[in-house]
């Protein structure tokens, strides 16, 4: 099945389409016409279904209703399970700090099922393994049945390797790509009608923030793009992380499209944001949900050498354009979504949002984005202030986590 459900069909107010010609215009000109769609913001203090489900239902209604998007469709949902399931911030469950909470996933699945989705596929490329996602999340103390039973025809697939497909799907970047012209991905990213990114609201050591777009860095199978990827052909099973995208010290398996410019900077702070924009352009996001109910400050996971602290912003954000929703989420985090390299949270890296805006994916200009629900000023959780105070202190020693 080919992904033939475009954002244009669904978004009533999408003003512009991504095209190869888009990058040819001036940056300001492109930014001015980059799509702007409503973003829903809601307070949600707990992960209890009684609070979560009606809150999410209301948010989807504010966006025009889930039915228009998912009815009769196969929905693929990329969740965020970064790092091994055996690492926590202190003693806290992973979902309270850096994994997308299973109740948010289950609530989304439940509402999509109720809205008429015919098949719902939960996708992730878990760290260095070809094990089923169900097995992976059991190690995090999750119960897969909580998600599988939230609607009819729900299934998981590990997309870190070939998986259940017979071949990798070649997904082309419409504008030609910053780093890669196309990607070889697990079939699940092509064999869907609707693609959803459910992310966690976090800072990120390499990309400044990780929201709905950065979540899609994990689309890349490590059999092709990982440290242990095959040289000529993909390896059978994934090994290690995505070091080759971070560092550019080698290319992906030769069977896959290669990097456009091998003389481009080999710095992860340049490469990762651009690769993310290439990915979300090759595999457009139709719906993004950001879990900011409970999360962490200081980085994307327990392995980051910062003063990592749990945080409870009590927020959910949803939208149909990933740049728009990430811009609103950045503002909710106390950051300026118009920030560029050199300004927090992009002190060392390029802004994924700006690069995506330049590529015509969506605007990051808050004045053009309609916010439904709670106003940003009322819902803000000051990641930026915490970051400033944290960075004024010495870097802490990391504990023993293996």
């Amino acid at each position, binding site marked *: 099945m080919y992904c033939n459900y475009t954002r244009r069909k669904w978004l009533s107010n999408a003003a512009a389409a991504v095209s190869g010609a888009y990058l040819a215009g001036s940056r300001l000109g492109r930014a001015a016409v980059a799509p702007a769609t409503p973003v829903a913001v809601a307070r949600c203090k707990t992960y209890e279904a009684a609070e979560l489900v009606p809150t999410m239902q209301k948010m989807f209604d504010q966006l025009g209703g889930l039915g228009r998007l998912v009815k009769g469709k196969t929905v693929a949902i990329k969740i965020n399970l970064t790092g*091994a399931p*055996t690492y*926590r911030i202190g*003693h806290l469950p992973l979902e309270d700090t850096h994994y997308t909470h299973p109740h948010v996933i289950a609530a989304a699945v439940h509402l999509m099922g109720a809205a008429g989705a015919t098949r719902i596929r939960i996708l992730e490329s878990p760290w260095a393994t070809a094990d089923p996602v169900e097995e992976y999340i059991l190690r995090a103390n999750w119960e897969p049945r909580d998600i599988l039973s939230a609607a009819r025809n729900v299934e998981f697939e590990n997309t870190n390797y070939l998986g259940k497909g017979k071949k990798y799907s070649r997904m082309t970047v419409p504008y030609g790509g910053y780093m890669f012209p196309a990607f070889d991905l697990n079939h699940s990213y092509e064999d869907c009608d609707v693609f959803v990114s459910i992310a966690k609201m976090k800072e990120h050591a390499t990309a400044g923030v990780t929201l709905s777009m950065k979540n899609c860095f994990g689309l890349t199978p490590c059999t092709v793009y990982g440290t*242990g990827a095959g040289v000529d052909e993909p390896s*059978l099973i994934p090994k*290690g*992380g995505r070091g080759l995208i971070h560092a550019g010290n080698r290319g992906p398996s030769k069977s896959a499209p290669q990097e456009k410019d091998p003389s481009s900077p080999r710095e992860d702070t340049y490469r990762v944001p651009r690769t993310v924009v290439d990915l979300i352009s090759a595999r457009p996001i139709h719906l993004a949900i950001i879990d900011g109910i409970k999360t962490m400050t200081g980085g994307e996971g327990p392995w980051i050498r910062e003063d990592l602290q749990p945080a409870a912003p009590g927020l959910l954000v949803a939208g149909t354009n990933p740049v728009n929703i990430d811009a609103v989420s950045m503002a909710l985090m106390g950051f300026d979504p118009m920030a560029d390299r050199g300004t927090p949270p992009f002190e060392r890296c390029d802004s994924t949002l700006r690069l995506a805006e330049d590529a015509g994916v969506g605007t990051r200009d808050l004045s053009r984005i309609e916010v439904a629900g709670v106003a940003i000023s009322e819902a803000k959780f000051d990641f930026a202030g915490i970051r400033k105070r944290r960075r004024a202190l010495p870097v802490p020693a990391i504990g*023993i986590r*293996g």
Partner: protein
Amino acid sequence: MTAPWTPMRWPAAWTDSSALDLIKGSAIDYLLIEKGDQFESVRTQAQQAGLRIGVPDEAPSGVTLVKGQWPGVRMAGRASAGPTGDPWVDSNGWQIQLAGALHPQTAVWVTATPPQNFRASAGAYLIGVADSGAYGGRWVISLDNQLAAGLAARRPDALEIWKRTVAAASFFAQRKAWAGYSAAAVVGVISDFAGDNEAFSRELLNLLARAGQHYRILPKDKAPDLEGLRAVIYADAQQPEANLRKQILGFVEAGGALIASPSWGAAPGAAAKPDDEGPLFVARSLGKGRIALAKTPARDPYQWANDSVVMVSHRYDMVRFWNGGATGSFYATSADRKHGVAHLLFYANRGPDAASVRIAGHWKAVKAWTPDGPVETIETEYHQDAIEVHLPQVPQYVALELE
């Protein structure tokens, strides 16, 4: 398995019997002293002090000697794992369990000397003692030359390491009953562990332990106790004898799983759904259970160990760690199943600062112990079918005593 004694290999440099003062009052009650006249006074005074005397590398009566390796994180070569990958841990636990299964009436002693370039520390020696003690065996305490010289000279740093090592040995000596507890397990490994099957079956045990799987060793010549297991692995190159085959198939029909090599022969039951097939195994369903037959003769124990963990499912993990780093565990229960102990081993050069562990089972109370005493500040969460314990900063070994 029994554990009546705490053995120590007498350092070759300790020809002066005054070194026996170091042993005095400790749990060490069996000295393995090299032959030679230079040790005569040591032997004589040790015997007068009530200590048993043996010779290194010769198993005394009632003891099975296992040649082990120094336990810990393997540092040789370039690490292939990322910052959150699993480190490669060397442990003697599987050898102790195997020796105990093959020779259940004996004590199991492990001989393993510190490696070259060994940097003595209390933590390293604690791991040495606990890696055997946890599994019901005993490490034959063997000092590196530098520590032995430091102790002979009564250097404070050496004495501190010795004090901690002796405390660890005493900890296990005071809990001899634990050696008689039965391994809590989800999978049984059936083999004769000998001849053509020796290399594969033994490496399978080693790698299952590395994968965090808790298993019961079932020697083929004894009627296997399959009670409570979710799966059995039969990897031998010969077909099972008829009675054994019948018993295992009965176990499968009742809901268990069998993972077997092609030498098992034709498997009854029906072909399973294609989704249940793996690249290495053909799946069949039989009664309430299932059979996974390898497509080719058993070649790669690493693949078998890791695939079997997923086939059994992490749902049935006996022990799960968080923030443990390089971990190992052995979980055992008393015959009446009213008492249990989960031995937690952290093989890094210091213990974790915020580890959590989930122990499967219906337990009402838990106490955490280190060789230094009780851990007072644990937090406990009682789940439906497990108990989760949050530990503060702890050393490399913790015992969770369960009731």
